[in-house]
């Protein structure tokens, strides 16, 4: 009843092509931003900020990066944890070796290094396709895991590969309390989400989608597969690298290569699939699902007054997690983003049936 575009006439191409063409969407988005920037930091406790909101935002950012590669360009990657690791360790190395370097620049340079590694491991995608490529990307995962464990230079000769960051400041402001860190991450995520959305709406995004839908046909109509695939790898690993640096700097504080192992890669892939392939908003839904599910699973037995042994509980959690993933794939293979758009369509005609 309230959500429809009647009477909203567009008199320029610019107005027609904006990200949110419906006024109600724009108002909703502004409200959401106000909540995210003002209400959440003001109301949420430190636990909520640290355990839910910060990981949610960073995982959503990483998922946006992976979605560009998997959802928009159709190149399955199971090695995204590796690019997070490269971003984290590269940023950290800049921080340690050039102490005067500003925080934001460290993080962006971490992303730049992840881009280089991403493009190198993206080269096989020019020959190898589909599931073969998915397995081949595991090479990146294992190689990077190994490199950060075995090559002491990368961890500045710390004995166990465990590194930590000092107190952070950005633009002269401290980034230390959970609230400050939350706002710092939120600013990053907002910028990159808008950037990604605009990229996939633009010429390059259309090229990626053409390659995804059928690469032979795309090259016939004049899209260069080499350029399209490698830019997808580059952009995707840049964003994932930045997310990795944020994950390490803001969320973990001190970490070891294990923080970015295969489990992390699979988690990202889950987020992308459950959220919805080829959807920026889906990355946020997927990340929220992935962050809330374990919290939910650990707390449900307590609500019913059950007390389980720690290892039994963790095994049951594993089972429920696996079963839920299968369940979601069965009921909505196109992800939560599809449910979102179905809901919106329904809302437009509500309360009428057609």
């Amino acid at each position: 009843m309230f959500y429809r575009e009647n009477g909203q006439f567009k008199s320029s191409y610019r107005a027609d092509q904006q990200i949110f063409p419906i006024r109600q969407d724009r108002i909703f988005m502004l409200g959401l931003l106000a909540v995210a920037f003002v209400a959440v930091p003001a109301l949420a406790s430190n636990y909520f900020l640290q355990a839910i909101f910060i990981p949610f935002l960073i995982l959503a950012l990483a998922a946006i990066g992976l979605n560009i590669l998997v959802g928009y360009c159709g190149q399955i990657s199971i090695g995204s944890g590796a690019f997070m690791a490269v971003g984290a360790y590269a940023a950290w190395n800049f921080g340690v070796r050039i102490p005067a370097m500003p925080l934001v620049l460290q993080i962006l340079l971490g992303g730049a290094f992840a881009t280089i590694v991403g493009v190198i491991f993206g080269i096989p995608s020019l020959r190898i396709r589909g599931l073969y490529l998915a397995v081949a990307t595991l090479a990146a995962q294992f190689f990077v895991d190994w490199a950060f464990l075995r090559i002491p230079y990368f961890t500045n000769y710390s004995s166990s590969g465990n590194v930590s960051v000092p107190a952070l400041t950005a633009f002269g402001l401290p980034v230390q309390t959970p609230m400050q860190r939350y706002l710092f991450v939120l600013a990053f995520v907002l910028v990159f989400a808008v950037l990604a959305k605009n990229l996939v709406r633009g010429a390059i995004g259309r090229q990626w989608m053409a390659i995804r839908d059928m690469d032979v046909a795309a090259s016939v109509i004049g899209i260069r597969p080499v350029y399209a695939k490698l830019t997808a790898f580059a952009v995707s690993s840049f964003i994932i690298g930045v997310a990795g640096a944020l994950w390490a700097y803001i969320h973990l504080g001190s970490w070891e290569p294990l923080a970015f192992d295969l489990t992390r890669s699979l988690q990202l892939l889950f987020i992308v699939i459950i959220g919805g392939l080829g959807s920026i908003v889906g990355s946020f839904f997927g990340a929220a699902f992935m962050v809330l599910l374990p919290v939910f699973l650990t707390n449900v037995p307590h609500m019913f007054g059950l007390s389980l042994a720690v290892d039994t509980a963790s095994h049951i959690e594993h089972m429920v997690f696996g079963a839920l993933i299968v369940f979601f794939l069965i009921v909505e293979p196109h992800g939560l983003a599809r449910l979102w758009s179905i809901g919106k369509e329904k809302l437009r005609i509500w309360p009428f049936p057609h």
Partner: protein
Amino acid sequence: MAFFLETLFGGLMTGMLYSLVALGFVLIFKASGVFNFAQGAMVLIAALSMARFSAWIPHWLGFESLILANILAFAVTAIFMWLIAIIIERFVLRYLVNQEGTTLLMATIGISYFLDGMGQLIFGSSVYTIDVGMPKDPAFILESVFEGGVLVSLEDLTAAVVAAALVAVLAFFFQYTSVGRALRAVADDHQAAQSIGIPLNRIWVVVWTVAGLAALVAGIVWGSKFGVQFTLSTAALRALPVVILGGLTSVPGAIIGGLIIGVGEKLSEVYLGPYVGGGIEIWFAYMLAMVFLLFRPQGLFGEKIIDRV
């Protein structure tokens, strides 16, 4: 030279073990187009079940014989794998027919989480042993050719023989039984197979059971060698480069690929490892597979990929 041969034999035998796990992948992919990431979890759960039942059954029934216990445990585990196959077909595959490869891959990752949790919930998560009486002592061969001979682990040799036997049995099963023929028909074309009356659902149960049995054999061999513990489920990750190197759709490819990866891994670890800090075998296998794929994108024996617009 003797040392090189030792490494080479060691590599070949590890390669046979990889082939065992890879076989499970190939069987399922051929018959249902599912890239089964859960194969490692199936190896783990089969090995856990084997280890626990071979300890439990003598305790329950009150006898001592190790051989009888192993046989009974094998039978019980085989039934267990069959039940898992039925459950997977009934509750997962049936609903995901005709979905994209990625979705199916994700579903099997979900299955692998489920099986990992279930296996450890039912059977416990400590380290267990499987004792099927594999010879533990090393032997020396070719003593007349080289001074001191070449050291060969009899355990590895047994494992390699078992793997080879399993492959032979599977080849026979595929080639000469009616179920095998139906399997090949399904692998060729789902729709055509269905239209001449081959029940797809039952075929899938059969395939997942056979893959479960391959996982069981792999689990017994790996488990008696390294002990049954959670790391067994990473066995699948060691076998993945084998699968893509050999070609996702080829049984001989899984064997040859396994041998190539096994040998390449061992040789690289021994001759290249010391220069770069060791522990390179896991990524080296992937790199090796990737280099092969650059020249043959469909794997060594995979079906040729033909692009049509």
